[in-house]
C-alpha cells in the first residue's frame, strides 16, 4: 500500500485530544479505555490476553507485527482488545514460526486499529492525565466531525464499575492434563481454576509441574467446585473493576473458610484482597509491561515481572495486619512494586492462601516468578498431609 492511498483513521480521547493516523486492521469504529503497554515483545500474547477486554491498547514499542502471528503463542481463543494503536505496523512478517501477518489477523478478528500516530505523545498524555475513554474511527468514520466523535466517546461506559469477567470466561468447564505437557507420572495435585479471563499459559505452568487443572466458568458455584475434590483453588486474571466481582468474592470467602489452599493471579489477587475485607482502587494509568520490578519481601530478591493491571489492592505495605474480616487472621503484603510501592502480592499467615497482582505465568514476559507455582504446589502438598 502506498503512502498516499492509505485509509485515514483518528484516535479520539474523552478529554478532546485527537491523534490522526491511518487505518490498521479492520476499518470502522470502536470504543474502549485507552491504556498503554510497554512490552517490546509479545504483541500476540497481549492481544489475546482477556484482561485487555474493553481496552484500546497503545503499544509503546514502535514496530509491531514483525514476527507475524502463529498458532502457538495466543493466550486465549481470540483477540480481546477493543482497539489497537501502533506507530509502525510491519509490512511483512518474518519469523520461522509465522503463519500469517498481524494485519490479516486483525482483519479476520474484526479488530479496529490505527497506525502512524505519535504513540509516545499519547503515552505521555495518558501517563499524566490517566487512562481514559477513547475511540478509534477509521475509513469514512474518520471523516466525521471531531466534536461528534468526542461526544460518542464521552457517552461510552467507564472502566470503573465495569463488570467484564463473565463475558470473557469460558461457557463450560474443561480440564488441562499434566500428561499433555510432558508430565509422565500421576498428577501431584488437582486444582480448580476459575476463569475470569485466564491466559492459556497459566494452566500450562501448573500442568508442567504435575498439577491437573479444571478450568471452570466465572459463575461456578462452591458445590460445583467441591465436586472436583480439589487440593487447591485458583482464581485467574481478568478484565474489569474488581469492585463488581461480588459473586467471586463470596465464593472465595467460602473456600477460604474451608481452608482450601488458594492462589490468585491479578484479578484473583484483587478478589483475595476484597474477600479479606480490603478495598481496591483504580491506578491513574495502571501497570502494563514486562519490565516491572517487584520485591519478594520473603527472600529480599527482586523479580522482573509481567504486569497488566489498572486496579490494585489497598492494604498496608509494611508489617503484618489483621484482615478487616478478622476470622481470616493475619496477613502481610508479600510483594511490592518497586516503581511506586503498589501492593503486588498478599499472603495470609493463618490460612493457606496467597496471591500476586502480576503474572508469574509470564506470557509475554520474563520467567523470574515461575517459582510461585512451586510455592502453591508446596502449600497444597503441606495441607494434604
Amino acid at each position, binding site marked *: 500500500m502506498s503512502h498516499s492511498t492509505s485509509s485515514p483513521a483518528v484516535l479520539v480521547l474523552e478529554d478532546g485530544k485527537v491523534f490522526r493516523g491511518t487505518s490498521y486492521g479492520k476499518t470502522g469504529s470502536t470504543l474502549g479505555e485507552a491504556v498503554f503497554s*510497554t512490552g517490546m515483545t509479545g504483541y500476540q500474547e497481549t492481544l489475546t490476553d482477556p484482561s485487555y477486554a474493553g481496552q484500546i491498547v497503545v503499544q509503546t514499542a514502535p514496530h509491531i507485527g514483525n514476527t507475524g502471528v502463529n498458532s502457538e503463542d495466543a493466550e486465549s481463543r481470540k483477540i480481546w482488545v477493543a482497539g489497537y494503536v501502533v506507530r509502525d505496523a510491519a509490512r511483512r512478517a*518474518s519469523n520461522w514460526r509465522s503463519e500469517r501477518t498481524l494485519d490479516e489477523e486483525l482483519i479476520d478478528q474484526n479488530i479496529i486499529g490505527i497506525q502512524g500516530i505519535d504513540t509516545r505523545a499519547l503515552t505521555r498524555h495518558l501517563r499524566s492525565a490517566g487512562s481514559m475513554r477513547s475511540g478509534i474511527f477509521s475509513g469514512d468514520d474518520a471523516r466525521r466531525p471531531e466534536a461528534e466523535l468526542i461526544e460518542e466517546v464521552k457517552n461510552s461506559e467507564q472502566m470503573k464499575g465495569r463488570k467484564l469477567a463473565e463475558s470473557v470466561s469460558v461457557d463450560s468447564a474443561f480440564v488441562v492434563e499434566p500428561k499433555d505437557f510432558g508430565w509422565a507420572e500421576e498428577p501431584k495435585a488437582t486444582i480448580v481454576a476459575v476463569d475470569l479471563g485466564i491466559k492459556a499459559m497459566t494452566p500450562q505452568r501448573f500442568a508442567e509441574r504435575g498439577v491437573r487443572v479444571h478450568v471452570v466458568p466465572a459463575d461456578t458455584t462452591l458445590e460445583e467446585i467441591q465436586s472436583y475434590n480439589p487440593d487447591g483453588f485458583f482464581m485467574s486474571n481478568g478484565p474489569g473493576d474488581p469492585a463488581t466481582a461480588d459473586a467471586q468474592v463470596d465464593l472465595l470467602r467460602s473456600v477460604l473458610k474451608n481452608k482450601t489452599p488458594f492462589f490468585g493471579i491479578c484479578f484473583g489477587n484483587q478478589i483475595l484482597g476484597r474477600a479479606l475485607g480490603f478495598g481496591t482502587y483504580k491506578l491513574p494509568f495502571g501497570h502494563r509491561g514486562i519490565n516491572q520490578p517487584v520485591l519478594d519481601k520473603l527472600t529480599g530478591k527482586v523479580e522482573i515481572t509481567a504486569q497488566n493491571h489498572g486496579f490494585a489492592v489497598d492494604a498496608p505495605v509494611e508489617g503484618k495486619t489483621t484482615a478487616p474480616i478478622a476470622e481470616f487472621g493475619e496477613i502481610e503484603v508479600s510483594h511490592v512494586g518497586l516503581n511506586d510501592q503498589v501492593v503486588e502480592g498478599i499472603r495470609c499467615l493463618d490460612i493457606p492462601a496467597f496471591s500476586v497482582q502480576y503474572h508469574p505465568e509470564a506470557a509475554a514476559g520474563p520467567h523470574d516468578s515461575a517459582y510461585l507455582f512451586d510455592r502453591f504446589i508446596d502449600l497444597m502438598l503441606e495441607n494434604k498431609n
Partner: protein
Amino acid sequence: MPRRKDLNSILVIGSGPIVIGQAAEFDYSGTQALRVLKEEGVRVILVNSNPATIMTDPEFADATYIEPITPEVIEKIIAKEKPDAILPTLGGQTALNAAISLDEAGILAKYDVELIGANIEAINLGEDREAFKGVVERAGGESARSIIVHSMPEALKAAEELGYPMVVRPSFTMGGLGSGLAYNEEDLYRIAGAGIQYSPTSEVLLEESILGWKEYELEMMRDKNDNVVVVCSIENFDPVGVHTGDSITVAPALTLTDREYQRLRDIAINVIREVGVDTGGCNIQFAIEPDTGRVVVIEMNPRVSRSSALASKATGFPIAKIATKLSLGYTLDEIPNDITQKTPASFEPTLDYVVVKVPRFAFEKFPAADPTLTTTMKSVGEAMALGRNFTEALQKAMRSLEQKGSAFSFIKPELSESELNELIEKTKVPTTERIHQVQQALLAGATIEQMYDATGIDPWFLDQLVLLNEVAEEVADKGTLDEDILRYAKRHGFSDEQLAEIVGMNEDIVRGVRHALGVRPVFKTVDTCAAEFEAFTPYHYSSYDTEDEVAQHDKPSIMILGSGPNRIGQGIEFDYSCVHASMVLREAGYETVMVNCNPETVSTDYDVSTRLYFEPLTLEDVLEVIESERRTGGLMGVFVQLGGQTPLKLAQQLKSAGVPILGTSPEAIDLAEDRGEFAQVLENAGLLSPKNGTAYTFDSAKKIADEIGYPVLVRPSYVLGGRGMEIVYDEENLARYLENATEVSPSQPALIDKFLEDAVEIDVDALYDGTEMYLGGVMEHIEEAGIHSGDSACTLPPITLGTDIIQRVKEATYEIAKGVGVRGLINIQFAVASDILYVIEANPRASRTVPFVSKATGVQMAKAAALIGTGKSIAELKQEGYLPQHMDGASLPSDTAIAVKEVVLPFSRFRTPGGVVVDSLLGPEMRSTGEVMGLDRYLDTAFAKAQTAVGSTLPTEGKVFVSVANRDKRNTIIYVKMLQQLGFEIVSTGGTADVLRRNGVDSQVVAKMRETAEDEKSIVDMINDGEINIIFNTPSGGGEARGDGYQIRAAATSVGCPVMTTVSEFGSAVQAINALREYSWSVMSLQEHEQNLAKAQEVNA
C-alpha cells in the same frame, strides 16, 4: 544493604591505548566508575597508559598512574598505594588479563588485595572454550555441536551428524594452520585429511558451521543478591560471520517473538549464575538458526564491553556506573534510576524508539588489505543514531558516518540482468559496501528472497530497505515537495541532501522549502521506560513526529559540536577537548549542549553536559538542534574548534546561517587552510615554510619538483590525516604517483612541498586571546620529518632542542596565532633543518596532542580555550588559576620529568587477500589508532615505558636483526656497537654486515629472502620461529629490497616482535634498553608530577 565498609581504597585498571576492538568506550566506562568511587568517598587509584582519556585527568582519581599496564608495574603501584581491592571489569580485556596475571604471579595474595566485580574462576570459565561448553549445557543451552575425529572414516561419520558446511580445526597447530570450512565431502577429504596429518596428535575438531545464522546479544547486570536484569537486547543486521563490532546492529531486537526472546533471557541468566559472575555487567552472544529457531550460545564476556557502552547510550541505563556501585556491595534495588529519579535500577529498560549502530572503517588507509569482513574486527569507530522507527534510525546512522557515499543513494541504477546478477553475487561476501549493494540491487529489481538467499540478512530488514526505495520513488514521482511528501520522507530518515538528489534540487532549497512548510523535527527523550515515568535527564534525539519534549531553559546555552565517529586521525583526543569545554563552562555557570553521534565517548554520557543531543553532525541535523535551543531559551553560540575537522568544516555554513561561532572565527579558520593567504601571514612575520607549489598536471608537477629539488612531498589538496601523501625521491616516482593518484584533478590539484630530509619535527599547542599567547607545550618528534605527526613518537619537554630554538618557536607561534586571528587553541608543526626553522602547517583548533600536553604539563588547555571562547583573557585565566602565572611550555625547568608519547598501529588486523599482514612501514599517511604516554625522569626510561605500554616491550638481551638502507648505515654503527657491548647477538644481511664488520662488529649473516637457498633458514623464518628479539630495518626505497623489508616487517608484526624503522627511533630504543638493564623502574603519579611542576613554578616566580 549499604555498601561494604571495608573497601577504603580501590585500584582501577584502565584499558590502555585505543586499539581496534578496544576503544573510547572504556574511557566512558572508566570515567563513570571513577566518579562513582569518588562520590562514595573511596580513595581511588588508577593505572592507564593512555593520556588521551578523560579518566586519566588528575581530578578523577586520588593517584593517577599513566604507566604501562603490566603485572610488574601494577605490583609497584600496589606496593606503593596499598589498595584494599582491584576493580578490573571496566578496562576491557586488557584489565581482565592484567588481573589474571596478577593472580597467577601471586601478587594479589602477596599484598592481600581483593578483586571486586569479578573472580578469576568466572573469567577463566568465560575464556576456556571447552569449560564454557559445559557451562552452557548445565545452563540448559546449546553450543555449536562438535566432534573430535582421528581418521577419515570417523570424519565422514561425524559429517552425517553435523551436516555441511562444517568448520575443520586440527588440534594443536600454530595459528589456525590447516583449518577451513568444508562445504562438501570433497572439501572434507582435502581439509580434514591434511588436518589429521598436520596435527601432532592426529586429531581434528569438526564443528557445525553457524555462518549465516541470526545473531543476538544480551547485555546483563547481576548484583550480589543474585538479582539479574537484561539491560538491552541487540540484534545484528549482518548474520553470523561478521564480527559484532563490524556489524550494523540494532536495539532492541526486532525479529523475535516473546517466547524466543525469553528463551535467550533464561539461558543468559542461567549462564551468568553457572559462570558465577560476581557482580556487574556482562554480555552473552547467541546465534539462531533462521529456519528452525535453534539457539546456540556463542560466547560470554564477564565484564563491561563495547556493547555495554552501546547499550548504555541506547537505553539510558548507565551500565558502568551501576556495575561499579554493585562491586561496592550495593544491590540493584538500592540504586535509583538517574533518569526517572523515583524508580530503582532493578528493572529492564524498555525502548519506544529504535537504535542503529553502524561501524566506520579505515580500509582507505590500508590499500593492500582485503576488505572482506570476517570474525576479526577491523572497524576503527562507530556511529549510533536513534529514531522512532528503524528506517529513520538507520538513515541517521548512515549519514553520521560522514564518509562520501555513506548515505544511501536512490538514483536507480540501470543494470542489465547479468549486471544485476553480478551485483547480487557480490553481496554474498560481506564487505563495508554490502548494505549499499543490497539496497542498490533491490532498487534495480532484485527480490527480497533473492537478497535473503545471497546475504542471510533477515527479510524484515530487507523489506525496510525496500520501504526506503519505495519512499524515494514516491518522492521522485511526485516531482514537487509539499508538506505531505516531506513529512513522509522525513519520517523514514531522508536527509535534505538525499531529497535534493532525488528531486534534482540544491540541498539549501530543499531545506528552505521544508522550513517554509514548517516541516521540522521534534526532539524526544531517552528515558529507559517508554514514557511510563517522567524523565529528568535531558538526553534527546530528533524525530519527525509530533510532540517536542525539550524543556524551556532560563539562559542562552553554549553548544559544543563533537567529533563524530572515531577514525584514524580523529579520535578520543577530540572528545577529550569537547568534554573539558563542557565541564569548565558548566563550572562557570553556563548551560552547555553537546551534539555528537559517537556512542563510545564520554561526551555522549547524559550527565556531562546540561543537555545532550544524540544527533548526526551534518549541517542539516546541527541546524535543527540549534533551532531547538533557540526555541527553548536561546543559544549564545557554538564551539566548532574542539571536535576536530568534523565541526570545523561546518563553521562557515553555520555562520552564514546566522549562528554565532565562539572562539576562532570561520574566516580565521579559512585563512589558515588557504595556502596563499597563510603564506602571506608567514611572510609578514618573516617566517619560512618549505618551498612548495601547486600542480594540476604532470608537467607542472615536474617543473615545480625540479625547481625546489627532490625529495618532495606530494599530496592531493584538501585531505585529512595525510591521506594519499607520499615522499617522492625522483621524477620516475613522481610520474607514478600522479598516475595512481585518483584524487588529483584540475579542481583538486596536487600540492608539492620540498621534503626536508633529516629535519627534526616539532609540534606546538598554544592559546591566543587576541593580545596574549600562552605556549602550552613544545613537542619534539623522535622520528625525523616525513612520518605523519600522528604516527610519530614525541617527547615533552623537547630533549635535544636548545633554548634559542625553543624561543624562536615561541615567537613564531605568537606571530602565526596573531596573524591568523586565533581565539583559543592553535596547533603548529615546525621543522628544524640545518638550524633553520620552517613552518609546516597551522591548525587553528584543538589538536590530537592537547590531552598529552595537558597531562605532561599539568595545564588543562581545552578548558582554557573554552573560556577564551566566552571572552575571558589569558591574563584573567592566569589570575583565576586556569593557567600558570610564571611558567609556560617553553620555560619548563630542566629537571621536569620527560613525557614520551608513543603510538599503537593496527597492522596485525589487516591482511592482504593472500593472508599476509599489510606493511607496517610508517609514512606521511597516518595509520595509528591510539597512543600511550611514558613518564619518567629521563628520556631513556620514559621511552622504555612507552614502548612497554604499546605492547612492544624492548628486550634486554637476545638477538637483534639489523638491515638498513645505504643512507642510514653510517648513523647506525654506534647503536649496533652499543647493543653488542650489552651482550646482544647481531644478525644482519650482506651489505649491512660488511659495514658492521669493518667497524669491528661481527654479525651472523643471514640471507635475504630472494637469496635463500632451499634448505637455508631465511630471516623471515627466524622471525617466525621467535629467534629474533628486536628488528631494525629501514626501507631503501627500491622495489626488490622494499619487498624483502615488507616480508620482514610483516613477519615481525605477526609475531609481535618490536620493529624500528627509523634511525632516531632505534637510537632511543638502544638507550632505553641500556636503561632497562641498569635501572629499576619506579612509578610516579600524575598528582606527584603536578606537585613537582607547581614547585618549579614557585621557583620561577
